[in-house]
Protein backbone atom coordinates (compact mmCIF):
# COMPACT_ATOMS: atom_id res chain seq x y z
CA UNK A 1 0.00 0.00 0.00
CA UNK A 2 1.34 3.44 -0.93
CA UNK A 3 1.92 5.97 1.82
CA UNK A 4 -0.88 8.23 0.51
CA UNK A 5 -3.29 5.34 0.33
CA UNK A 6 -2.43 4.24 3.89
CA UNK A 7 -3.02 7.77 5.13
CA UNK A 8 -6.37 8.04 3.32
CA UNK A 9 -7.59 4.71 4.67
CA UNK A 10 -6.72 5.72 8.23
CA UNK A 11 -8.31 9.09 7.85
CA UNK A 12 -11.63 8.18 6.25
CA UNK A 13 -12.12 4.70 7.68
CA UNK A 14 -15.37 3.48 6.16
CA UNK A 15 -16.64 6.75 4.78
CA UNK A 16 -15.58 6.51 1.16
CA UNK A 17 -18.24 8.98 -0.03
CA UNK A 18 -16.74 11.64 2.23
CA UNK A 19 -13.27 10.79 0.97
CA UNK A 20 -14.45 11.27 -2.61
CA UNK A 21 -16.24 14.51 -1.73
CA UNK A 22 -13.14 15.99 -0.13
CA UNK A 23 -10.38 14.68 -2.32
CA UNK A 24 -11.72 13.96 -5.79
CA UNK A 25 -12.19 16.83 -8.19
CA UNK A 26 -15.98 17.57 -8.38
CA UNK A 27 -16.49 14.62 -6.00
CA UNK A 28 -19.00 16.62 -3.97
CA UNK A 29 -21.48 16.06 -6.83
CA UNK A 30 -21.61 12.29 -6.41
CA UNK A 31 -24.35 12.39 -3.77
CA UNK A 32 -26.61 14.28 -6.22
CA UNK A 33 -26.92 11.25 -8.51
CA UNK A 34 -30.48 9.88 -8.54
CA UNK A 35 -29.58 6.66 -10.36
CA UNK A 36 -31.72 7.31 -13.42
CA UNK A 37 -29.20 5.64 -15.71
CA UNK A 38 -29.15 8.18 -18.53
CA UNK A 39 -25.35 8.57 -18.35
CA UNK A 40 -24.85 4.81 -18.58
CA UNK A 41 -27.27 4.55 -21.51
CA UNK A 42 -25.85 7.57 -23.29
CA UNK A 43 -22.16 6.67 -23.07
CA UNK A 44 -20.97 5.66 -26.55
CA UNK A 45 -18.46 3.28 -24.97
CA UNK A 46 -20.78 2.27 -22.15
CA UNK A 47 -20.99 -1.36 -23.20
CA UNK A 48 -17.19 -1.64 -23.15
CA UNK A 49 -16.83 -0.62 -19.52
CA UNK A 50 -17.11 -2.77 -16.49
CA UNK A 51 -18.58 0.09 -14.42
CA UNK A 52 -20.67 2.86 -15.96
CA UNK A 53 -20.71 6.26 -14.20
CA UNK A 54 -24.11 5.43 -12.68
CA UNK A 55 -22.69 2.23 -11.22
CA UNK A 56 -19.48 3.89 -10.01
CA UNK A 57 -21.49 6.54 -8.14
CA UNK A 58 -23.59 3.88 -6.44
CA UNK A 59 -20.42 1.93 -5.57
CA UNK A 60 -18.93 5.07 -4.02
CA UNK A 61 -22.01 5.50 -1.86
CA UNK A 62 -21.90 1.83 -0.95
CA UNK A 63 -18.32 2.29 0.25
CA UNK A 64 -16.72 -0.04 -2.29
CA UNK A 65 -13.44 1.84 -2.10
CA UNK A 66 -11.09 -0.83 -3.41
CA UNK A 67 -13.30 -1.74 -6.37
CA UNK A 68 -13.85 1.87 -7.39
CA UNK A 69 -10.24 3.01 -7.17
CA UNK A 70 -8.84 -0.06 -8.89
CA UNK A 71 -11.50 0.01 -11.63
CA UNK A 72 -10.20 0.98 -15.03
CA UNK A 73 -13.62 2.24 -16.16
CA UNK A 74 -12.98 5.90 -15.42
CA UNK A 75 -9.81 5.65 -17.53
CA UNK A 76 -11.96 4.69 -20.54
CA UNK A 77 -13.77 8.03 -20.66
CA UNK A 78 -13.12 9.84 -23.94
CA UNK A 79 -14.60 13.14 -22.75
CA UNK A 80 -17.40 13.18 -25.31
CA UNK A 81 -19.57 14.96 -22.74
CA UNK A 82 -22.78 13.14 -23.76
CA UNK A 83 -23.41 12.27 -20.09
CA UNK A 84 -22.96 15.84 -18.88
CA UNK A 85 -25.30 17.17 -21.54
CA UNK A 86 -28.03 14.69 -20.69
CA UNK A 87 -27.72 14.33 -16.91
CA UNK A 88 -31.02 15.58 -15.46
CA UNK A 89 -29.20 16.68 -12.31
CA UNK A 90 -26.40 18.41 -14.23
CA UNK A 91 -23.64 16.38 -12.59
CA UNK A 92 -20.27 17.12 -14.23
CA UNK A 93 -19.88 13.38 -14.88
CA UNK A 94 -16.95 13.59 -17.29
CA UNK A 95 -15.01 15.71 -14.82
CA UNK A 96 -15.82 13.33 -11.96
CA UNK A 97 -14.49 10.43 -14.08
CA UNK A 98 -11.22 12.29 -14.63
CA UNK A 99 -11.16 13.27 -10.94
CA UNK A 100 -11.52 9.64 -9.91
CA UNK A 101 -8.81 8.55 -12.34
CA UNK A 102 -6.48 11.22 -11.04
CA UNK A 103 -7.16 10.27 -7.42
CA UNK A 104 -6.56 6.58 -8.11
CA UNK A 105 -3.32 7.62 -9.81
CA UNK A 106 -2.21 9.65 -6.77
CA UNK A 107 -2.88 6.67 -4.51
CA UNK A 108 -1.19 4.39 -7.00
CA UNK A 109 -4.14 2.00 -7.15
CA UNK A 110 -4.51 1.94 -10.93
CA UNK A 111 -4.36 -1.48 -12.61
CA UNK A 112 -0.82 -2.17 -13.81
CA UNK A 113 -0.05 -0.96 -17.31
CA UNK A 114 -3.37 0.88 -17.71
CA UNK A 115 -2.69 2.41 -21.16
CA UNK A 116 -4.52 5.73 -20.66
CA UNK A 117 -2.54 6.31 -17.51
CA UNK A 118 0.74 5.51 -19.25
CA UNK A 119 0.01 7.92 -22.09
CA UNK A 120 -1.00 10.64 -19.65
CA UNK A 121 2.08 10.08 -17.55
CA UNK A 122 4.49 10.23 -20.52
CA UNK A 123 2.73 13.31 -21.86
CA UNK A 124 2.92 15.08 -18.52
CA UNK A 125 6.53 14.20 -17.88
CA UNK A 126 7.55 15.50 -21.28
CA UNK A 127 5.61 18.70 -20.79
CA UNK A 128 6.66 19.39 -17.20
CA UNK A 129 10.34 18.99 -18.02
CA UNK A 130 10.74 21.59 -20.77
CA UNK A 131 7.41 23.40 -20.97
CA UNK A 132 6.89 21.85 -24.40
CA UNK A 133 5.72 18.39 -25.38
CA UNK A 134 8.53 16.79 -27.35
CA UNK A 135 6.46 14.90 -29.88
CA UNK A 136 9.30 12.72 -31.13
CA UNK A 137 10.43 11.62 -27.69
CA UNK A 138 6.82 11.25 -26.57
CA UNK A 139 5.94 8.93 -29.47
CA UNK A 140 9.14 6.93 -29.08
CA UNK A 141 8.50 6.55 -25.35
CA UNK A 142 5.04 5.26 -26.20
CA UNK A 143 6.47 2.73 -28.69
CA UNK A 144 8.89 1.41 -26.10
CA UNK A 145 6.56 1.39 -23.07
CA UNK A 146 6.00 -2.37 -23.43
CA UNK A 147 9.68 -3.29 -23.73
CA UNK A 148 12.54 -2.93 -26.19
CA UNK A 149 11.57 -5.62 -28.71
CA UNK A 150 7.97 -4.40 -28.92
CA UNK A 151 9.31 -0.87 -29.22
CA UNK A 152 11.40 -1.76 -32.30
CA UNK A 153 8.40 -3.49 -33.81
CA UNK A 154 6.16 -0.45 -33.20
CA UNK A 155 8.78 1.90 -34.60
CA UNK A 156 9.22 -0.19 -37.74
CA UNK A 157 5.46 -0.36 -38.22
CA UNK A 158 5.21 3.42 -37.99
CA UNK A 159 8.30 4.32 -39.96
CA UNK A 160 6.33 5.24 -43.11
CA UNK A 161 4.34 7.80 -41.17
CA UNK A 162 7.53 9.09 -39.57
CA UNK A 163 9.31 9.65 -42.88
CA UNK A 164 6.19 11.23 -44.30
CA UNK A 165 6.04 13.70 -41.43
CA UNK A 166 9.73 14.45 -41.86
CA UNK A 167 9.28 15.12 -45.57
CA UNK A 168 6.38 17.44 -44.82
CA UNK A 169 8.69 19.12 -42.26
CA UNK A 170 6.26 18.28 -39.44
CA UNK A 171 8.87 16.26 -37.57
CA UNK A 172 12.43 17.26 -36.83
CA UNK A 173 14.75 14.30 -36.05
CA UNK A 174 17.11 16.68 -34.21
CA UNK A 175 14.42 16.97 -31.49
CA UNK A 176 15.80 13.68 -30.21
CA UNK A 177 18.79 15.58 -28.80
CA UNK A 178 17.37 17.90 -26.13
CA UNK A 179 14.67 19.45 -28.27
CA UNK A 180 13.05 22.88 -28.00
CA UNK A 181 11.85 24.23 -24.69
CA UNK A 182 10.14 27.24 -23.17
CA UNK A 183 12.23 30.28 -22.24
CA UNK A 184 12.68 29.47 -18.56
CA UNK A 185 12.01 25.84 -17.62
CA UNK A 186 13.41 26.46 -14.13
CA UNK A 187 10.59 28.87 -13.29
CA UNK A 188 8.05 26.44 -14.74
CA UNK A 189 9.34 23.74 -12.41
CA UNK A 190 8.93 26.10 -9.46
CA UNK A 191 5.38 26.96 -10.53
CA UNK A 192 4.44 23.32 -10.86
CA UNK A 193 5.97 22.53 -7.49
CA UNK A 194 4.04 25.39 -5.89
CA UNK A 195 0.78 24.27 -7.55
CA UNK A 196 1.34 20.75 -6.32
CA UNK A 197 1.99 22.02 -2.81
CA UNK A 198 -1.28 24.03 -2.80
CA UNK A 199 -3.21 21.10 -4.26
CA UNK A 200 -1.78 18.71 -1.67
CA UNK A 201 -2.66 21.07 1.15
CA UNK A 202 -6.23 21.46 -0.14
CA UNK A 203 -6.79 17.76 -0.60
CA UNK A 204 -5.14 16.85 2.67
CA UNK A 205 -2.20 14.93 1.22
CA UNK A 206 0.38 17.03 3.04
CA UNK A 207 -0.58 16.28 6.65
Amino acid sequence: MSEHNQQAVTRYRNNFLQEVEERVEDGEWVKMCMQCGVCAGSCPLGNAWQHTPQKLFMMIRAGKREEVLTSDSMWMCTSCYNCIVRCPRKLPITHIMHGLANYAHRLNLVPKGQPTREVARLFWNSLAKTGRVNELKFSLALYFKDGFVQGIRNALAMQGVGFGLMKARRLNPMELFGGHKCKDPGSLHKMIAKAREIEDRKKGFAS
Partner: protein
Amino acid sequence: MTAPISTNQTILVVGGGISGMTAALEAAECGKQVILAERNTSLGGRTALLYRYFPKMCHPTCGLEINLRRLKNNRNLRVLTQTEVVSVTGQRGDYTVALKISPRYVNANCTACGECAKAVETEISNPYEYGLAKTRAAYLPHAMAYPQRYVLDPSIVSTADGEKARAACKYDAIELGMQPETVELKVGTVVWATGWKPYDAAKIQPYGYDRFDNVVTSLEFERLADPHGPTGGKLLRPSDGKEARNIAFIQCAGSRDENHLRHCSRICCMASLKQTQYAREAYGEEGKSTVYYIDIRSIDRLEDFYLRVQQDPTVKFIKSKVASIKLDEASGDLILHGVDTEGYHRYAAQHDLVVLAVGMEPESNGIALPADIVTDSSGFIEGAADGGQFAAGAASSPLDVNRSVQSATAAALHAIQVVHQTAAAEGA
Protein backbone atom coordinates in the same frame (compact mmCIF):
# COMPACT_ATOMS: atom_id res chain seq x y z
CA MET B 1 -71.35 42.98 -26.93
CA THR B 2 -71.76 45.34 -24.00
CA ALA B 3 -69.37 45.15 -21.09
CA PRO B 4 -70.81 43.31 -18.10
CA ILE B 5 -71.35 45.64 -15.21
CA SER B 6 -68.86 45.05 -12.46
CA THR B 7 -67.62 46.73 -9.31
CA ASN B 8 -64.65 46.45 -7.03
CA GLN B 9 -66.57 43.69 -5.27
CA THR B 10 -66.52 41.57 -8.39
CA ILE B 11 -64.17 38.59 -8.67
CA LEU B 12 -62.42 37.96 -11.97
CA VAL B 13 -61.42 34.35 -12.60
CA VAL B 14 -58.95 33.92 -15.44
CA GLY B 15 -59.19 30.54 -17.12
CA GLY B 16 -62.21 28.27 -17.53
CA GLY B 17 -60.73 24.84 -16.95
CA ILE B 18 -61.71 22.66 -14.04
CA SER B 19 -59.96 25.00 -11.56
CA GLY B 20 -61.38 28.23 -12.95
CA MET B 21 -64.89 26.79 -13.17
CA THR B 22 -64.64 25.55 -9.61
CA ALA B 23 -63.26 28.80 -8.17
CA ALA B 24 -65.86 30.83 -10.06
CA LEU B 25 -68.75 28.58 -9.01
CA GLU B 26 -67.74 28.38 -5.36
CA ALA B 27 -67.55 32.18 -5.15
CA ALA B 28 -70.73 32.73 -7.15
CA GLU B 29 -72.64 30.25 -5.04
CA CYS B 30 -71.60 32.28 -1.99
CA GLY B 31 -73.43 35.20 -3.59
CA LYS B 32 -70.42 37.01 -4.99
CA GLN B 33 -70.37 38.54 -8.45
CA VAL B 34 -67.96 36.62 -10.65
CA ILE B 35 -66.68 37.03 -14.18
CA LEU B 36 -65.05 33.97 -15.69
CA ALA B 37 -62.78 34.74 -18.63
CA GLU B 38 -61.67 31.87 -20.87
CA ARG B 39 -59.21 32.30 -23.72
CA ASN B 40 -60.46 29.36 -25.78
CA THR B 41 -63.80 28.87 -27.47
CA SER B 42 -65.18 26.60 -24.76
CA LEU B 43 -64.92 25.97 -21.05
CA GLY B 44 -63.47 22.72 -19.77
CA GLY B 45 -59.78 23.24 -20.43
CA ARG B 46 -57.50 20.24 -20.57
CA THR B 47 -59.78 18.23 -18.31
CA ALA B 48 -62.38 18.00 -21.06
CA LEU B 49 -59.78 16.34 -23.27
CA LEU B 50 -59.03 13.47 -20.92
CA TYR B 51 -60.51 10.05 -21.46
CA ARG B 52 -60.66 8.90 -17.84
CA TYR B 53 -59.61 10.12 -14.40
CA PHE B 54 -57.40 8.26 -11.99
CA PRO B 55 -57.80 6.49 -9.64
CA LYS B 56 -61.49 5.76 -10.08
CA MET B 57 -61.26 5.48 -13.87
CA CYS B 58 -64.42 7.55 -14.30
CA HIS B 59 -65.00 9.91 -17.21
CA PRO B 60 -64.40 13.67 -16.92
CA THR B 61 -67.72 14.33 -18.65
CA CYS B 62 -69.46 13.45 -15.42
CA GLY B 63 -67.79 16.10 -13.28
CA LEU B 64 -67.92 18.67 -16.07
CA GLU B 65 -71.61 18.12 -16.54
CA ILE B 66 -72.28 18.81 -12.87
CA ASN B 67 -70.22 21.99 -13.04
CA LEU B 68 -71.95 23.15 -16.22
CA ARG B 69 -75.33 22.61 -14.62
CA ARG B 70 -74.27 24.64 -11.57
CA LEU B 71 -73.01 27.31 -13.91
CA LYS B 72 -76.18 27.55 -15.96
CA ASN B 73 -78.24 27.90 -12.77
CA ASN B 74 -76.17 30.69 -11.31
CA ARG B 75 -77.03 34.31 -12.02
CA ASN B 76 -73.97 35.71 -10.25
CA LEU B 77 -71.58 34.21 -12.75
CA ARG B 78 -70.88 35.57 -16.20
CA VAL B 79 -68.79 33.60 -18.66
CA LEU B 80 -66.72 35.25 -21.38
CA THR B 81 -65.07 32.91 -23.86
CA GLN B 82 -62.34 33.82 -26.37
CA THR B 83 -61.34 36.45 -23.86
CA GLU B 84 -57.80 37.27 -22.83
CA VAL B 85 -56.58 39.54 -20.07
CA VAL B 86 -54.60 42.38 -21.56
CA SER B 87 -53.70 44.22 -18.39
CA VAL B 88 -54.39 44.39 -14.68
CA THR B 89 -53.70 47.66 -12.88
CA GLY B 90 -54.47 48.85 -9.40
CA GLN B 91 -54.29 47.06 -6.10
CA ARG B 92 -56.03 44.69 -3.75
CA GLY B 93 -59.73 45.53 -3.70
CA ASP B 94 -59.44 48.00 -6.57
CA TYR B 95 -58.28 46.66 -9.90
CA THR B 96 -58.97 47.78 -13.42
CA VAL B 97 -58.63 45.00 -15.94
CA ALA B 98 -58.64 45.22 -19.71
CA LEU B 99 -60.03 42.19 -21.54
CA LYS B 100 -59.68 41.51 -25.22
CA ILE B 101 -62.59 39.53 -26.66
CA SER B 102 -61.95 37.85 -29.99
CA PRO B 103 -64.83 37.34 -32.40
CA ARG B 104 -66.52 33.94 -32.58
CA TYR B 105 -68.41 34.91 -35.76
CA VAL B 106 -71.33 32.92 -34.34
CA ASN B 107 -73.95 34.56 -32.13
CA ALA B 108 -76.31 33.24 -29.48
CA ASN B 109 -78.85 32.13 -32.11
CA CYS B 110 -76.71 29.05 -32.76
CA THR B 111 -78.47 25.76 -32.02
CA ALA B 112 -75.39 23.65 -32.76
CA CYS B 113 -77.27 22.02 -35.66
CA GLY B 114 -74.03 21.64 -37.59
CA GLU B 115 -75.24 22.84 -41.02
CA CYS B 116 -72.36 25.36 -41.25
CA ALA B 117 -69.79 22.62 -40.76
CA LYS B 118 -71.33 20.67 -43.63
CA ALA B 119 -71.19 23.72 -45.88
CA VAL B 120 -67.54 24.69 -45.45
CA GLU B 121 -64.72 22.82 -47.16
CA THR B 122 -61.62 24.24 -45.52
CA GLU B 123 -60.05 21.98 -42.94
CA ILE B 124 -57.88 23.11 -40.04
CA SER B 125 -55.83 21.23 -37.49
CA ASN B 126 -58.29 20.47 -34.71
CA PRO B 127 -57.16 22.60 -31.75
CA TYR B 128 -58.78 20.13 -29.36
CA GLU B 129 -56.99 17.03 -30.68
CA TYR B 130 -53.37 18.15 -30.16
CA GLY B 131 -52.86 18.10 -33.92
CA LEU B 132 -53.87 14.43 -34.28
CA ALA B 133 -56.88 15.23 -36.46
CA LYS B 134 -58.35 17.84 -38.70
CA THR B 135 -61.71 19.48 -38.44
CA ARG B 136 -63.85 21.64 -40.69
CA ALA B 137 -63.16 25.34 -40.17
CA ALA B 138 -66.68 25.71 -38.73
CA TYR B 139 -66.73 23.45 -35.72
CA LEU B 140 -68.06 22.62 -32.29
CA PRO B 141 -65.00 22.55 -30.01
CA HIS B 142 -65.91 19.21 -28.41
CA ALA B 143 -68.88 17.21 -27.26
CA MET B 144 -68.95 18.88 -23.82
CA ALA B 145 -68.37 22.39 -25.19
CA TYR B 146 -69.83 25.30 -23.30
CA PRO B 147 -71.22 27.43 -24.70
CA GLN B 148 -72.68 24.77 -26.97
CA ARG B 149 -72.14 26.90 -30.02
CA TYR B 150 -70.18 26.50 -33.22
CA VAL B 151 -67.09 28.59 -33.96
CA LEU B 152 -65.77 29.88 -37.24
CA ASP B 153 -62.01 29.76 -37.67
CA PRO B 154 -60.82 33.30 -38.47
CA SER B 155 -58.99 31.99 -41.55
CA ILE B 156 -62.24 31.44 -43.51
CA VAL B 157 -64.18 34.51 -42.44
CA SER B 158 -63.38 36.63 -45.47
CA THR B 159 -63.39 33.74 -47.93
CA ALA B 160 -66.09 32.04 -49.98
CA ASP B 161 -66.24 29.34 -47.29
CA GLY B 162 -67.30 31.92 -44.69
CA GLU B 163 -70.08 33.04 -47.00
CA LYS B 164 -71.15 29.42 -47.51
CA ALA B 165 -71.36 28.91 -43.76
CA ARG B 166 -73.47 32.03 -43.37
CA ALA B 167 -75.78 30.94 -46.16
CA ALA B 168 -76.17 27.46 -44.68
CA CYS B 169 -77.29 28.77 -41.28
CA LYS B 170 -81.07 28.76 -40.85
CA TYR B 171 -80.97 30.83 -37.68
CA ASP B 172 -78.96 33.87 -38.75
CA ALA B 173 -76.36 32.84 -36.22
CA ILE B 174 -73.31 33.60 -38.31
CA GLU B 175 -72.05 37.18 -38.26
CA LEU B 176 -69.01 37.54 -40.47
CA GLY B 177 -68.59 41.18 -39.48
CA MET B 178 -67.89 40.57 -35.80
CA GLN B 179 -64.90 42.58 -34.58
CA PRO B 180 -62.52 42.02 -31.69
CA GLU B 181 -63.23 44.33 -28.79
CA THR B 182 -61.48 45.43 -25.66
CA VAL B 183 -63.43 46.08 -22.49
CA GLU B 184 -62.32 47.61 -19.21
CA LEU B 185 -63.75 46.34 -15.95
CA LYS B 186 -63.45 47.16 -12.28
CA VAL B 187 -62.81 44.14 -10.10
CA GLY B 188 -61.81 43.65 -6.48
CA THR B 189 -59.66 40.58 -6.89
CA VAL B 190 -58.32 38.27 -9.56
CA VAL B 191 -58.02 34.48 -9.41
CA TRP B 192 -55.50 33.13 -11.90
CA ALA B 193 -56.62 29.69 -13.01
CA THR B 194 -54.59 29.70 -16.18
CA GLY B 195 -53.67 26.04 -15.85
CA TRP B 196 -50.82 24.21 -17.46
CA LYS B 197 -49.45 23.16 -20.80
CA PRO B 198 -47.54 20.04 -21.76
CA TYR B 199 -43.79 20.57 -21.95
CA ASP B 200 -42.64 20.74 -25.56
CA ALA B 201 -41.58 17.11 -26.05
CA ALA B 202 -39.53 17.95 -29.17
CA LYS B 203 -37.01 19.62 -26.88
CA ILE B 204 -36.11 16.22 -25.41
CA GLN B 205 -33.87 15.50 -28.36
CA PRO B 206 -32.92 11.82 -27.72
CA TYR B 207 -36.60 10.79 -27.63
CA GLY B 208 -37.24 12.04 -31.17
CA TYR B 209 -40.81 13.27 -30.66
CA ASP B 210 -40.32 15.52 -33.67
CA ARG B 211 -38.73 12.75 -35.78
CA PHE B 212 -40.74 9.61 -35.01
CA ASP B 213 -44.49 9.44 -35.66
CA ASN B 214 -44.97 6.69 -33.10
CA VAL B 215 -43.61 8.71 -30.22
CA VAL B 216 -46.62 10.52 -28.75
CA THR B 217 -47.28 12.53 -25.61
CA SER B 218 -49.48 11.29 -22.77
CA LEU B 219 -52.09 13.88 -23.75
CA GLU B 220 -52.21 12.63 -27.33
CA PHE B 221 -52.61 9.13 -25.93
CA GLU B 222 -55.67 10.33 -23.98
CA ARG B 223 -57.17 11.46 -27.28
CA LEU B 224 -56.39 8.08 -28.90
CA ALA B 225 -58.17 6.28 -26.08
CA ASP B 226 -61.20 8.58 -26.09
CA PRO B 227 -64.19 7.30 -28.13
CA HIS B 228 -64.78 10.93 -29.17
CA GLY B 229 -61.15 11.20 -30.29
CA PRO B 230 -59.55 10.92 -33.72
CA THR B 231 -59.39 7.11 -33.72
CA GLY B 232 -62.77 6.51 -32.14
CA GLY B 233 -61.13 5.18 -29.00
CA LYS B 234 -58.88 2.61 -30.72
CA LEU B 235 -55.21 2.71 -29.75
CA LEU B 236 -53.96 3.13 -33.32
CA ARG B 237 -50.45 4.37 -33.78
CA PRO B 238 -49.98 7.43 -35.96
CA SER B 239 -47.47 6.10 -38.54
CA ASP B 240 -49.52 3.28 -40.08
CA GLY B 241 -52.74 3.02 -38.09
CA LYS B 242 -51.68 -0.33 -36.66
CA GLU B 243 -53.07 -1.30 -33.27
CA ALA B 244 -50.46 -0.53 -30.62
CA ARG B 245 -50.31 -3.58 -28.39
CA ASN B 246 -46.83 -3.24 -26.98
CA ILE B 247 -46.68 0.21 -25.49
CA ALA B 248 -43.80 1.89 -23.65
CA PHE B 249 -44.46 4.68 -21.17
CA ILE B 250 -41.49 6.93 -20.45
CA GLN B 251 -41.77 8.82 -17.18
CA CYS B 252 -40.17 12.15 -16.35
CA ALA B 253 -40.21 13.23 -20.00
CA GLY B 254 -39.10 16.77 -19.31
CA SER B 255 -39.78 16.75 -15.58
CA ARG B 256 -37.17 16.51 -12.82
CA ASP B 257 -34.57 17.55 -15.33
CA GLU B 258 -32.34 20.60 -15.00
CA ASN B 259 -32.18 20.76 -18.80
CA HIS B 260 -35.96 20.94 -19.08
CA LEU B 261 -38.39 21.38 -16.16
CA ARG B 262 -36.72 21.30 -12.77
CA HIS B 263 -39.85 20.32 -10.86
CA CYS B 264 -41.61 16.97 -10.53
CA SER B 265 -44.92 17.31 -12.36
CA ARG B 266 -46.51 14.94 -9.84
CA ILE B 267 -49.39 13.71 -12.01
CA CYS B 268 -47.44 11.85 -14.70
CA CYS B 269 -46.78 8.66 -12.72
CA MET B 270 -50.47 8.27 -11.98
CA ALA B 271 -51.41 9.25 -15.54
CA SER B 272 -49.18 6.54 -16.99
CA LEU B 273 -50.44 3.94 -14.51
CA LYS B 274 -53.94 4.90 -15.60
CA GLN B 275 -53.02 4.67 -19.26
CA THR B 276 -51.64 1.15 -18.88
CA GLN B 277 -55.21 0.27 -17.99
CA TYR B 278 -56.44 1.74 -21.30
CA ALA B 279 -54.32 -0.91 -23.02
CA ARG B 280 -55.77 -3.56 -20.74
CA GLU B 281 -59.27 -2.28 -21.45
CA ALA B 282 -58.57 -2.52 -25.18
CA TYR B 283 -56.78 -5.88 -25.35
CA GLY B 284 -57.27 -7.71 -22.06
CA GLU B 285 -54.39 -10.09 -21.39
CA GLU B 286 -53.08 -9.57 -24.95
CA GLY B 287 -51.83 -6.03 -24.39
CA LYS B 288 -48.43 -5.19 -23.02
CA SER B 289 -47.43 -2.03 -21.21
CA THR B 290 -43.94 -1.24 -19.99
CA VAL B 291 -43.34 1.70 -17.68
CA TYR B 292 -39.80 3.13 -17.67
CA TYR B 293 -39.41 5.17 -14.50
CA ILE B 294 -36.90 6.79 -12.16
CA ASP B 295 -39.18 6.25 -9.20
CA ILE B 296 -42.95 5.95 -9.06
CA ARG B 297 -44.49 8.82 -7.15
CA SER B 298 -48.03 7.85 -6.29
CA ILE B 299 -48.75 9.91 -3.25
CA ASP B 300 -50.85 8.84 -0.23
CA ARG B 301 -54.14 7.15 -1.16
CA LEU B 302 -53.13 6.93 -4.82
CA GLU B 303 -50.60 4.30 -3.88
CA ASP B 304 -53.43 1.74 -3.76
CA PHE B 305 -53.87 2.25 -7.47
CA TYR B 306 -50.15 1.71 -8.05
CA LEU B 307 -50.25 -1.51 -6.04
CA ARG B 308 -53.21 -2.67 -8.12
CA VAL B 309 -51.45 -1.95 -11.40
CA GLN B 310 -48.35 -3.76 -10.11
CA GLN B 311 -50.47 -6.89 -9.80
CA ASP B 312 -51.48 -6.62 -13.45
CA PRO B 313 -49.44 -9.18 -15.44
CA THR B 314 -49.71 -7.08 -18.62
CA VAL B 315 -47.79 -4.23 -17.00
CA LYS B 316 -44.04 -4.34 -16.53
CA PHE B 317 -41.95 -1.81 -14.64
CA ILE B 318 -38.35 -1.03 -15.55
CA LYS B 319 -36.39 1.27 -13.28
CA SER B 320 -34.49 3.31 -15.82
CA LYS B 321 -34.62 6.65 -17.49
CA VAL B 322 -34.49 5.77 -21.18
CA ALA B 323 -31.33 7.22 -22.72
CA SER B 324 -32.37 7.32 -26.36
CA ILE B 325 -34.90 6.07 -28.90
CA LYS B 326 -34.06 4.76 -32.35
CA LEU B 327 -36.44 3.97 -35.17
CA ASP B 328 -36.67 0.51 -36.69
CA GLU B 329 -37.29 1.58 -40.28
CA ALA B 330 -38.80 -1.68 -41.47
CA SER B 331 -41.50 -2.08 -38.85
CA GLY B 332 -41.97 1.52 -37.73
CA ASP B 333 -41.36 0.25 -34.21
CA LEU B 334 -39.14 2.06 -31.79
CA ILE B 335 -36.12 0.71 -29.98
CA LEU B 336 -35.49 2.06 -26.52
CA HIS B 337 -31.91 2.10 -25.30
CA GLY B 338 -30.81 2.42 -21.72
CA VAL B 339 -29.50 0.72 -18.63
CA ASP B 340 -31.76 -0.87 -16.03
CA THR B 341 -30.80 0.43 -12.59
CA GLU B 342 -31.92 -2.82 -10.99
CA GLY B 343 -28.92 -4.93 -11.96
CA TYR B 344 -27.38 -2.44 -14.40
CA HIS B 345 -28.44 -4.46 -17.44
CA ARG B 346 -28.17 -2.76 -20.80
CA TYR B 347 -31.34 -3.11 -22.87
CA ALA B 348 -32.53 -2.40 -26.40
CA ALA B 349 -36.28 -2.93 -26.15
CA GLN B 350 -38.67 -2.82 -29.10
CA HIS B 351 -42.16 -1.27 -28.76
CA ASP B 352 -45.04 -0.42 -31.13
CA LEU B 353 -45.72 2.92 -29.57
CA VAL B 354 -43.95 5.16 -27.08
CA VAL B 355 -45.93 7.45 -24.80
CA LEU B 356 -43.94 10.28 -23.23
CA ALA B 357 -45.34 11.24 -19.85
CA VAL B 358 -44.64 14.91 -20.50
CA GLY B 359 -44.25 17.35 -17.67
CA MET B 360 -46.56 20.19 -16.70
CA GLU B 361 -45.41 23.67 -17.46
CA PRO B 362 -47.41 26.70 -16.32
CA GLU B 363 -49.57 27.88 -19.22
CA SER B 364 -48.63 31.39 -18.13
CA ASN B 365 -44.96 30.82 -19.04
CA GLY B 366 -44.15 33.10 -21.93
CA ILE B 367 -47.11 35.37 -21.13
CA ALA B 368 -46.50 38.68 -19.42
CA LEU B 369 -48.26 38.58 -16.05
CA PRO B 370 -49.02 41.76 -14.08
CA ALA B 371 -45.88 43.15 -12.45
CA ASP B 372 -46.93 42.42 -8.86
CA ILE B 373 -47.54 38.70 -9.48
CA VAL B 374 -44.99 36.47 -7.76
CA THR B 375 -44.00 33.19 -9.41
CA ASP B 376 -41.77 30.34 -8.28
CA SER B 377 -38.61 29.16 -10.04
CA SER B 378 -40.66 27.11 -12.52
CA GLY B 379 -43.09 29.93 -13.26
CA PHE B 380 -46.03 28.69 -11.19
CA ILE B 381 -48.04 31.57 -9.78
CA GLU B 382 -47.95 32.23 -6.05
CA GLY B 383 -50.21 35.31 -6.12
CA ALA B 384 -49.89 39.07 -5.87
CA ALA B 385 -47.49 40.51 -3.33
CA ASP B 386 -50.30 42.52 -1.67
CA GLY B 387 -52.62 39.50 -1.36
CA GLY B 388 -55.14 40.81 -3.85
CA GLN B 389 -54.67 38.14 -6.50
CA PHE B 390 -54.48 34.38 -6.17
CA ALA B 391 -53.65 31.30 -8.16
CA ALA B 392 -55.90 28.28 -8.43
CA GLY B 393 -55.20 24.75 -9.59
CA ALA B 394 -52.41 23.88 -11.98
CA ALA B 395 -51.52 27.56 -12.43
CA SER B 396 -50.19 27.44 -8.87
CA SER B 397 -48.43 24.07 -8.87
CA PRO B 398 -48.50 20.80 -10.81
CA LEU B 399 -51.77 19.29 -9.57
CA ASP B 400 -54.16 16.57 -10.65
CA VAL B 401 -57.86 17.29 -11.11
CA ASN B 402 -58.81 16.39 -7.57
CA ARG B 403 -56.18 18.62 -6.01
CA SER B 404 -56.86 21.37 -8.54
CA VAL B 405 -60.44 21.48 -7.33
CA GLN B 406 -59.27 21.71 -3.72
CA SER B 407 -56.82 24.46 -4.63
CA ALA B 408 -59.53 26.32 -6.56
CA THR B 409 -61.92 26.16 -3.63
CA ALA B 410 -59.21 27.58 -1.38
CA ALA B 411 -58.53 30.36 -3.89
CA ALA B 412 -62.23 31.16 -4.04
CA LEU B 413 -62.27 31.55 -0.26
CA HIS B 414 -59.30 33.93 -0.40
CA ALA B 415 -61.02 35.95 -3.11
CA ILE B 416 -64.23 36.12 -1.07
CA GLN B 417 -62.23 37.43 1.88
CA VAL B 418 -60.84 40.26 -0.25
CA VAL B 419 -64.35 41.15 -1.42
CA HIS B 420 -65.65 41.13 2.15
CA GLN B 421 -62.87 43.40 3.33
CA THR B 422 -63.46 45.76 0.43
CA ALA B 423 -67.15 45.85 1.24
CA ALA B 424 -66.49 46.47 4.94
CA ALA B 425 -64.07 49.30 4.14
CA GLU B 426 -66.70 50.96 1.97
CA GLY B 427 -69.43 50.38 4.54
CA ALA B 428 -71.52 48.52 2.03
